[in-house]
């Protein structure tokens, strides 16, 4: 862990905070795209240390937060069928659907298992050939390749009892969507390091050119984030907009080619509804024609219900687009907390509201 310790060194962190404070002449608005970055910024007190100098908006990069409510509801309905076992990542289980969370449904008899890798779902399908194994596949470009490999493996094995409820989403179209909002205030982005590790740095070139906005790809450790912030504010002060890689120990210009190849083989790009944000053009993946036979929604057509309008007091759209801070929501910490979340951002270890609740930066010293 020595490797990580270097990126958490308090002395260097304090120096960088000072440098950033000296660099800025006005309070710039930056968006950290990924939920992992949000948590790190709050956990280590970076947001608070720079509060008067930079406004940090925590973007939509929390995969469970944007998973459509219909997908969660469908998974819940299927889990109550005796022949079905629904699998997903642990984070997903507490996210509220229209009525309940997967954990709640499990306590009422739903067959739901938390897994660590899509391959676990394949193994389960092999072990239990008379059960239908449904994998609720969520996540960004980071998890989509692993799911793609699972699809390819299931195909090779000729598994007939494995299907996927695909809710994979793509980051870049969401960033474009945010920039096109009439009330957009974001002046620079901290790019999500893990997503860029897969897609490559070059994928962001057209975005930077089109919107003339600095994009600095950063990692998740405090020193990584501070370097990224310093680079972004330097650009903003200079009046330039460039694509800079501050996470070069992981991100390459072309990305992870074999991961992208697996994604290309299995998925096609589709317009995707993001929970709280609405449909984002080219904002997600669906299984392509070759693998559609593994699509849960095709296999269980009878379980699909028309989308229902859910009344919610959760202001996730305002949170994810940076219109308000989580603490400005009237429900925050009152009717909405991690044990009783009104919406997804309060659930996940990557959700912005959960981050504020957990590391709430009350000034104590």
């Amino acid at each position: 862990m020595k490797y990580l310790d270097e990126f958490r060194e308090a002395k260097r962190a304090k120096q960088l905070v000072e440098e950033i404070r000296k660099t800025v002449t006005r309070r710039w608005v930056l968006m950290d795209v990924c939920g992992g970055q949000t948590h790190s910024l709050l956990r280590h007190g970076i947001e608070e240390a720079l509060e008067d100098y930079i406004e940090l908006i925590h973007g939509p990069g929390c995969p469970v937060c944007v998973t459509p409510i219909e997908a969660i509801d469908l998974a819940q309905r299927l889990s109550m069928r005796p022949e079905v076992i629904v699998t997903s990542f642990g984070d997903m289980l507490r996210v509220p659907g229209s009525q309940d969370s997967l954990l709640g449904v499990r306590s009422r008899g739903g067959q739901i298992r938390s897994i660590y890798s899509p391959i676990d779902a394949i193994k389960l399908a092999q072990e239990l050939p008379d059960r239908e194994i449904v994998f609720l596949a969520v996540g960004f470009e980071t998890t989509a390749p692993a799911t793609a490999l699972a699809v390819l493996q299931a195909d090779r094995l000729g598994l007939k009892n494995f299907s996927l409820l695909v809710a994979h989403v793509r980051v870049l179209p969401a960033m474009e969507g945010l920039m096109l909002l009439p009330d957009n205030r974001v002046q620079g982005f901290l790019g999500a390091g893990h997503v860029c590790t897969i897609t490559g740095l070059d994928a962001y070139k057209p975005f930077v050119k089109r919107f003339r906005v600095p994009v600095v790809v950063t990692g998740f450790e405090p020193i990584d984030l501070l370097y990224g912030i310093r680079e972004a504010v330097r650009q903003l002060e200079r009046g330039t907009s460039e694509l800079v890689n501050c996470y070069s120990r992981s991100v390459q210009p072309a990305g992870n080619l074999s991961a992208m190849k697996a994604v290309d083989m299995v998925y096609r790009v589709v317009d995707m509804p993001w929970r709280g944000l609405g449909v984002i053009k080219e904002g997600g993946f669906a299984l392509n024609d070759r693998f559609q036979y593994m699509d849960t929604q095709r296999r269980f057509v009878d379980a699909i219900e028309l989308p229902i309008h859910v009344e919610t007091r959760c202001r996730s759209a305002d949170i994810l687009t940076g219109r308000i801070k989580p603490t400005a929501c009237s429900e925050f910490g009152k009717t909405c907390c991690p044990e009783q979340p009104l919406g997804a951002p309060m659930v996940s270890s990557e959700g912005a509201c959960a981050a504020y609740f957990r590391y709430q930066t009350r000034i104590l010293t």
Partner: protein
Amino acid sequence: MCCLLSLPNKNSNVNDAQEPIGYQCPAMVTSTSDCVTLAHGEGGFMMRRLIRDRIRSKLPPLVSDLGDAVDVGEIEGSIAITTDSYVVSPLFFPGGDIGSMSVYGTVNDLAVAGAEPLWLTLSLIMEEGLPLAVLDRVIESVAKAAILCNVKIVAGDTKVVPRGAVDGMFINTSGVGRLPRNAPPGASHIQRGDLLIVSGPIGRHGISVLAARENLGFTPEPRSDSASVQHATFALQTALGGDLRSMRDATRGGISAVMHEWAEASGLTMKLDEASIPTTADVRGVCELLGLDPLYVANEGTFVAAIAACSVERAMDVLQLIPQTASAAVIGEVIESTISPVVIERLLGRLLAVDEPAGAPLPRIC
């Protein structure tokens, strides 16, 4: 994800394995003579034989058997009683198993209260189909742990329930101990300025069990800290007297849960210093990977203590001489009540609130 009624994997032999690790998913035993059956719990000769040959013969002899009860003799002074149930899955994990854990856990509950553990009861609830070899290993582990802790198993019970009604085997142990006059006064006596000590690296049990249960495949496999803490607690108590305010084994909910309980009991704020909290490289690594915080992860042989500042040096001297607590550390202090009951000083020197654990931590997606 897997059950535990399992045979050893190909690479290990149950008889020569030093540590009960390497157990894998179920290769079901088919012959009923090798397994616990419902008949073993029905009160007939099969049950009597099971208890006689496989349980009692392996445990130290009882004090004085009265049939349905036992005469443990007279005791001087105050008596402390505790009870705990053990439902860990898998039954065997690197660094421990349900048998030794059911002894250490209850012994530790007495020890951190300042009591000298004397007697335990042992109740087994077994799932039909549990291999008798598994039962044997668990009972041997119970016996070994009881000898190490110098406690006597004085009463017991066995039940067998249909397949699926429990997860392999559940154990309940209750413990009785003698409470001396110098037992710590408890969390309500914690004072402003007291220092907080942890007896060793945190989070080892929770991470070990998680990795074993979910077959996460880390090498080397993270090991649980499951062990008795009574030597260390006894030594502290003897050396510090009333300056030792309170001790707690930081089991479910980890350090964070104990800190919240102490904050509530004392009406003060527990302030932790992140940099000084000891963790092992493997626990930190797994936590980073899964998005967990070691502060919330369970321990089974690690305790925290609140100690008057003037006695902390002595406490550290005592703990560092005991191998099990050699890496004990001062991890924080008790301060005047602030807006949050537990706070932590992280990287940039700011104090951040530590919230109370809400259910088991869930691994993140990416």
